């Protein structure tokens, strides 16, 4: 497999043709979309910030998947999709900072090597994926505390084992592959602490059975954990991290049904690394910049509303994968395939009305439905309960970039009259720093909502980022093709 960044890249400095379909995102959904669109004969460009295809799910060292093959799942699908997408013009290392409507469709504006380049396309498929949803706790800003996804990325992308003695915590099935991967690569995993009680799976067997592949995947990780004698404990959470310069221990506690700490249940577990994950947050900058309608999903995440062809409320814009509901790679692939077919059809059909009903085979629709049900069941047994807020001290940081404490966010609400998450953010500066709320947006919205749940407007208020990725002033001032000013 050839995955060099220059492969398929058009020479710089030339005006680009208008593609039929631009796919933004080279993970499972984006690769599937590009591959499916190409199969219909459409001219496709694939834009991704990474240096090679695969996204977060199939992350691997540059050019070398073999070294981490054992950490991956369903590589056959990955190889099939990469082969299928190989005829696309591939713009890797291109970070889209905005997308905008243009005369004949859309322009994806991306930064590559410090230069901005505009990619024109009739139709867009956005597959931006997601990243770890984070919940603050005492000491979570200590070096040695990672997100589950961050620890996983180090392992898959750089073959770096995050630490020697690791504690894994949070909620969701993703904790299993993270713990298993670390254990397999030699870390001593002191425990996996799942805040929920996933025995609930069994009661939802009806939703799960049609996608039995997912179950075998889980069983494989469970076996790996057993082999490495990694204890797995439910209804427990890492509620505090300790250490002077860096992490030396965590407090693990038993939780009640609302996730308040059961008094007396706290135990200190020594470790140099903690990998913590609370599900995922969809990456919505680009769909929101285009004005796509959203909804709140079962897991409390803001997601893009799509129809059964992955169409958003904005004509010509399709979204696939985690951005329309966290559901894992197999669902993302199914959605990507549907979006790719439908988008290519819309872009190339001489008949303006198109014939969408025939472009998506019913087996694909059924597969997506089953996987969506599986995802919903998964979310139902792994909710994030609001009791985590009781773990925080008033002085616990919610926003690490701007060093804003939980007390300060609460004061913005109680004293300064913020009635929504956006106002709480602007009055407290939580989410106004480098990460622009990508890390703390969800938590800020929750703390601002207090015991209530953040509503859609709250989540939008911390998710809208008209500049989807940082861009230097010189790149912004001097786009490719324009006369240089400096």
């Amino acid at each position: 497999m050839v995955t060099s960044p220059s492969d398929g890249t058009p020479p710089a400095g030339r005006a680009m043709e208008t593609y039929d379909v631009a796919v933004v995102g080279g993970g499972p959904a984006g690769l599937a979309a590009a591959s499916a669109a190409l199969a219909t004969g459409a001219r496709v460009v694939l834009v991704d910030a990474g240096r090679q295809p695969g996204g977060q799910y199939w992350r691997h060292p540059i050019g070398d998947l073999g070294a981490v093959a054992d950490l991956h799942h369903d590589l056959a699908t990955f190889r099939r999709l990469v082969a299928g997408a190989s005829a696309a013009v591939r713009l890797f290392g291109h970070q889209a900072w905005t997308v905008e409507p243009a005369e004949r469709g859309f322009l994806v504006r991306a930064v590559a090597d410090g230069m901005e380049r505009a990619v024109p396309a009739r139709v867009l498929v956005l597959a931006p994926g997601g990243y770890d949803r984070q919940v603050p706790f005492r000491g979570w800003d200590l070096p040695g505390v990672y997100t589950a996804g961050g620890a996983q990325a180090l392992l898959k992308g750089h073959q770096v084992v995050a630490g020697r003695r690791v504690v894994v915590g949070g909620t969701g099935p993703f904790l299993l592959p993270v713990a298993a991967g670390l254990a397999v690569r030699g870390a001593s995993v002191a425990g996996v602490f799942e805040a929920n009680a996933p025995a609930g799976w069994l009661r939802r067997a009806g939703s799960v059975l049609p996608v039995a592949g997912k179950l075998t995947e889980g069983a494989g990780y469970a076996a790996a954990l057993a082999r490495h004698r990694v204890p797995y404990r439910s209804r427990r959470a890492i509620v505090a991290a300790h250490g002077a310069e860096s992490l030396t221990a965590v407090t693990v506690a038993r939780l009640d049904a609302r996730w308040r700490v059961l008094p007396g249940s706290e135990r200190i577990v020594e470790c140099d690394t903690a990998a913590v994950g609370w599900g995922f947050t969809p990456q919505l900058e680009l769909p929101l910049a285009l004005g796509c309608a959203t909804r709140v999903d079962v897991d409390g995440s803001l997601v893009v509303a799509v129809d059964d062809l992955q169409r958003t409320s904005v004509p010509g814009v399709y979204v696939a994968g985690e951005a329309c509901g966290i559901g894992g790679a197999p669902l993302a692939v199914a959605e990507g395939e549907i979006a790719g077919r439908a988008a290519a059809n819309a872009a190339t059909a001489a008949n303006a009305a198109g014939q969408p009903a025939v472009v998506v085979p019913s087996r694909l629709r059924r597969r997506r439905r089953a996987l969506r049900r599986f995802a919903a069941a998964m979310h139902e047994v792994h909710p994030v309960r609001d009791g985590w807020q009781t773990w925080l001290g008033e002085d616990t940081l919610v926003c690490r970039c701007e060093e804003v404490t939980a007390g300060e966010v609460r004061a913005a609400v109680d004293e300064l009259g913020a009635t929504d998450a956006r106002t709480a953010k602007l009055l407290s500066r939580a989410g106004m720093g480098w990460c622009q709320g990508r890390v703390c947006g969800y938590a800020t919205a929750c703390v601002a909502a207090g015991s209530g749940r953040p509503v859609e407007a709250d989540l939008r208020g911390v998710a809208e980022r008209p500049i989807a990725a940082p861009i230097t002033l010189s790149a912004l001032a001097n786009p490719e093709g324009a006369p240089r000013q400096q």
Partner: protein
Amino acid sequence: MPADVVVIGAGVVGAATAWYATRAGLSVTVVDRGPVAGGTTGAGEGNILVSDKPPGAELDLAMLSSRLWRELGTEVGGFEYDAKGGLVVASAADGVAALSGLAAEQAKAGVDTVVVPAGDLAEHEPHLNPELAGGVLYPQDAQVQPMLAAARLLRSARRSGATVHTGVEVTGFLRSGGQVTGVRTSTGDLPAGAVVNAAGTWGGEIASLAGVEVPVLPRRGFILVTEPLPRLIRHKVYAAEYVSDVASDDAALQTSPVVEGTRAGTVLIGASRERVGYDRTLSVRVLRALAAQAVELFPVLAGVQVIRAYRGFRPYCPDHLPVIGPDPRAPGLFHACGHEGAGIGLAAATGLLIAELIDGQQPSLDVAPFRPERFR
């Protein structure tokens, strides 16, 4: 019991009005259909400027407001009041001459001005483009964090008895004969001795609910925000063209560089003006112009990352003056809106004057130039 005053708008002008009215002993209720500081207040840099105004009624208002903000910074506080000073620069000799001429006029009106020759610019702003021809320093120019300013003034007013209702929309006016006697809202009637229209860019809509015309329209502006940096830029620095852009009647896009650092370390980059209604779409063209001009002024910014951009809608009137005072066409109704891009700066004086007028005192400044019925 009816309130003495109902203030429509929980932005900085409404907040200042509520604060001064409460201090005068009046009972005050503030209503806003959105959150605190949810309109133009939350979309600006928080400028308190005297530098950009030629002598005249608006400069008098700005001078009064500048003094009041300094007092509020101590009396209320908590909103990052920063007397950083403004530095206006020009790239050519004729620009410097024009600037110096304006500064001399402003000085006669009581503005502190310091003409800075080209060779001395670096002493004030070490990272300025060395090719600039000169400038004028205005030590009285200051900055606040505008949302915090509104929120802190409202909190202080609440502690003195004022009531604030956010998420409540004014749907009409209560009348008794020709007199305005309160407002109808989405959650019920609020009778009041006086009603203040502090609805900013939406002030024209509120006026029309009362059957009077006040021509306030939106003028869109974008601001770029950089990554947090060590303090590179000490003053609010802008180019001489900014003054003429502010006064321009052209609907088309104007951009002139306005660059300043904040306490949080981010650098704010403006300013664009265009009349495109309430279009919230990000304009790449505008952002490019802002970026290019900022780098021209401060070459050191070229490699700095922009992490955020936002837009707001300035409330402008055809003569670029705010609307402040009682409306003889609807007795009981007072206007405090239409401050264009100077709303934060002019808010304190506006609030004080409105409170004085409602309370029957002699206003600290003649408000005739700002009278609401001046438009024909």
